């Protein structure tokens, strides 16, 4: 057994410096399209290319609804005028932007128990939440712990569009949690139904079933985006805007 101890020690620390410093490694984020100016004559061609209607034209500019983007890259690839994509990951925010939902109080800053509910997820969002447990992200260092029971949970992470068969389970989990509690919807499906909802078996997002406080866009959002969502939920990080002609706000290193 000692070989494992030696192996562990030999490996050293691989954990990201985020949130004190931004993570610069390649491949940690699938990126999101940036809005902004776009040639007017090609605008219609661009917005209809988007299969989930995440792109709109407002005053001659492209506006991206991040809740709907599913990373199909059709506004980036095989296109004469590709849209610029950011490689950022601090995406979490609230749709009710001007009057943000309150994050959990200061007593929750150092120990947060999170219950993850799979409400019809394709597997990717759940898989990315699971990556938060690996040594690269290690959410425990920030005081986040996954719990299997809502009785101990402060934050509920919901992935998936909420299928009809999971609806009761989602409601029951939410009701079983003690207050104060916050709900973080993770992924395009949980935000807008994604490519699945709405239909006769899928809702168009978690907010149709239980009140959602914070939202993390992306399909799937990379682990750092989900981590950002958790940090926003406890008030240790500021929220990003989910609708943007403006480039996504880039967080300063060490900023609260």
């Amino acid at each position: 057994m000692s070989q494992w101890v030696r192996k562990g020690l030999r490996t050293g620390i691989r954990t990201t410096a985020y949130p004190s410093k931004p993570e610069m490694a390649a491949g940690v984020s699938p990126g999101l399209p940036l809005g902004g100016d776009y040639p007017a004559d090609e605008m219609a061609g661009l917005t209809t290319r988007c299969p989930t209607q995440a792109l709109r034209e407002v005053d001659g500019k492209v506006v991206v609804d991040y809740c709907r983007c599913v990373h199909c890259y059709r506004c980036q690839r095989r296109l004469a005028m590709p849209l610029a994509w950011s490689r950022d990951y601090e995406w979490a925010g609230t749709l009710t932007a001007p009057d943000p939902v309150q994050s959990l109080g200061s007593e929750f800053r150092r120990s947060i128990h999170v219950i993850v509910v799979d409400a019809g997820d394709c597997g990717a969002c759940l898989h990315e939440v699971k990556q938060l447990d690996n040594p690269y992200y290690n959410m425990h260092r920030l005081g986040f712990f996954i719990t299997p029971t809502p009785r101990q949970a402060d934050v509920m992470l919901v992935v998936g569009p909420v299928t009809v068969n999971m609806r009761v389970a989602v409601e029951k989990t939410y009701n079983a949690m003690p207050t104060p509690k916050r709900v973080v919807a993770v992924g395009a499906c949980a935000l807008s139904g994604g490519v699945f909802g709405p239909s006769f078996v899928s809702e168009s997002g978690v907010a149709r079933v239980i009140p959602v406080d914070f939202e993390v866009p992306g399909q799937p959002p990379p682990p750092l985006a989900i981590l950002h969502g958790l940090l926003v939920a406890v008030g240790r990080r500021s929220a990003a805007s989910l609708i943007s002609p403006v480039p996504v706000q880039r967080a300063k290193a060490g900023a609260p």
Partner: protein
Amino acid sequence: MNQSELGQEMERRWPGQARYRLDSGGFGEVTCARDVLAQVCGKLFLDWSFSFAGLVVEEGAAEWRLRYLFYGERSAGWVHVLMNAPLDERTIPSIVKFVHAANWHERESEDLFGVLFEGHPHLGDFVLHDDAWQEGVAPMRHQFSAQVRDIERRPNMEWRPRRILEAPGAFAMPIGPVFSGLAESVHFLLETVGEDVIRALPRLFYKYRAIEKIAEGRAIENILLLAERFSATTAFAHALAFCQAVETICRAEVPARGRVLRVFIAELERFRHHVGAIEGICASTALVVAANQTAMLEEELLRVSGTLAGHRYLFGLAVPGGIATDLSDAACLEALRGCHDVLERLNELERMLRVSSSFLDRLEEVGFISEANARVFGLVGPIARASGISRDLRVAQPYEDYGRLKFEVPVEKEGDGYARLRVLFAEARESVSLMEQAVALLSAGRVAAPFQVQAGEALGWVEAPRGAAFHWLHLSEDGTAARYRIMPPSFANWHGFRLSVENFAFQDFPIILSTLDLSVAESDR
């Protein structure tokens, strides 16, 4: 047995009742009369060692069209058994008496189309849970709109799970659908008297998103999104199977570079998936260091994928006709270098795991599935190969460039958790070897070819990381889908799930579950 022998044999055994025809697509098509359907399927499955791929039920204008898909080793090829029945006829003869692998396919079709399979003993309460949906909803029928939001729901409140264990003090332990931190939503009912799982009943389809229904009437680029995203941990494999179906219908030719890149990406996905599965096994046995080491490798492979393709789960790459964007040779070499690095460390971990007795004790002789059962229940992929069934679609029915590549299909005989782990390790090595060969074969040229959308129907298949995946597509004249059917490997393997967990203790349950590596999203669709 090759196709011509097959045709003669059919005519000889069931003259006039089972008419054989060699389709232009290269597969044999046997049109069956109602009376001989079960015998024909049984002959193929039991005596001529064809594997059952799936059942496609389609509601035609005036008749039910049922298509039972069988495939054999390379020379035997494909056999589609067809049977038509008038729409007002609500019962279809069940083939489960001979082809047990068709069990869940018939149950699913019964729930979704309302067709009764005569002779099937356990119909009902499958996709549409009886405690959430009333009887008689047949959502896959054309008259049912996928967009209807508020269906009147009169579930049977008196519904109780079918319990079969009769023993003093027996009870049914419920697990899920919300359980165990990061598990996918699925419900288990474990019948027990306290220590051992005597009977396990998995209740799936909590995540039923009706992919097949909502795909109907959509254009192919929209269905591609569904094919790619219904099971995102193996997104590329399923997208590829769909693209192949489209390419077969539209007679599109994928350029050489596109074909090679497809192999490269598919094997990258398989490698990443298998490392993740190994991580799950290490975590379930509470071997923390090994679990963290493999978790790091998995994250590194996700980053390799992200760097190579933009998306960590390889979304948006596969398109009918080829690959969405050219990946440069340099990027592929860079990705291969990353994989080599990961494989080297994975091999070291394997050497260490092979001598960790506490780890092996929890895997060996646990979760046993016999070869006979694996075959009868229609298991596929690494699970079947760990039970001694060597069938792998990349060899049996090669697609893309797999026919040109040299690789081995690892097979183990024991059928226990450790055998499955060894298969995963060996397949991971083969995947990297295939990626090497693919990079060596890369030639300059286009990665995708344009094509004209046509009407027609075809099957696409891949050996996905979890096993054989089949996508059946029927395109109508306007280029939208009339019927899209996915037969994923996890659906086949969940069917055999109970074989491995029954008669083992509760504490083995999560370990067995992790060695099976079943995806709920993939199965539920």
